[in-house]
């Protein structure tokens, strides 16, 4: 694949932030495009979503989304939140990711929100929560540490 320079990538992120064009950020990362990550901003929160997609199926009898997709989507949500809300000088690096699966995820759209528990100078600690139709019934929660500098 054609990689882009670090400067161009940061420039594209900053430009997207300036225009508040969050979905342009999702478009910069190939895996986000594969998942179909969309970012929606409401008054006081950022919510990421992935659409219903049969190729995410991990268990066709239930049927349920593959746990790996749910995890990957939640990790992506945490990264998106960091990119949008923090001053970024480089792409944050994931160090640890811990996910608790609470319910099986139906083959349907998923939503997730992230909060920064501690925005450290070197490490950002984050919590992520994912749900489907009913926000009060989370399908998974996760904890992540990102190296930010």
């Amino acid at each position, binding site marked *: *694949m054609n*990689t*882009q*320079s*670090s400067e161009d*990538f940061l420039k594209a992120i900053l430009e997207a932030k300036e225009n508040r064009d969050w979905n342009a950020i999702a478009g*910069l*990362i*190939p*895996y986000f*495009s*594969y*998942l179909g990550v969309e970012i929606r901003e409401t008054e006081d929160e950022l919510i990421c979503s992935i659409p219903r997609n*049969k*190729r*995410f*199926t*991990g*268990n*066709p*009898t*239930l049927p349920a*989304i*593959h*746990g*790996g*997709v749910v*995890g*990957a*989507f939640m*990790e*992506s949500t945490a990264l998106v939140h960091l990119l949008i809300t923090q001053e970024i000088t480089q*792409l944050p*690096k*994931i*160090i*640890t*990711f*811990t*996910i*608790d*699966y609470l319910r*099986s995820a139906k083959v349907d759209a998923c939503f997730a929100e992230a909060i920064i528990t501690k925005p450290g100078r070197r490490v950002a600690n984050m919590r992520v929560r994912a749900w489907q139709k009913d926000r009060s019934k989370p399908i998974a929660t996760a904890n992540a540490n990102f190296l930010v500098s």
Partner: protein
Amino acid sequence: MSNAFDITQIQNIIDVGIPHCSDIGVKVESLNDDAVVMRLPYDTRFVGNPVSGVLHGGIVTTLIDTTSGMCIYAKLQKYLPIATLDLRIDYLKSAEPGRDVLARATCYKLTRQIAFVRAVAYHDTADDPIANSVSTFMLHSTPTKSLDKVSKEMREKS
């Protein structure tokens, strides 16, 4: 009758019974009751860092989750319904762009209801890991059919 835990057969079961795994192209490298090794071919669709071309951590999560579940089947010699309860991954170093990632998983403790699994992801050898993981799985998580039966039915349907 061939052994249900022959690699070709297990690969068939994955390709038909786990659509997401077939989509991302994971392959079983080796399996025995001690450990399962699976391979994720490098694919630009899964890049997380467009500057370096390095894969997104999330796709490594999927590979590890799949391999971890598979090692429980291999240990029990049975495709019972299982569900990941929790999974922790430590990312030790970046994967190298353009290279396949392998995962090796071992189920080190089984109880009546829970399986405890360790796994590593790597390029060349499990001694030089990209990621380390521990996870727990619920056994008999649903009253649904086992994976081999599902795959068989889906193959007959298609």
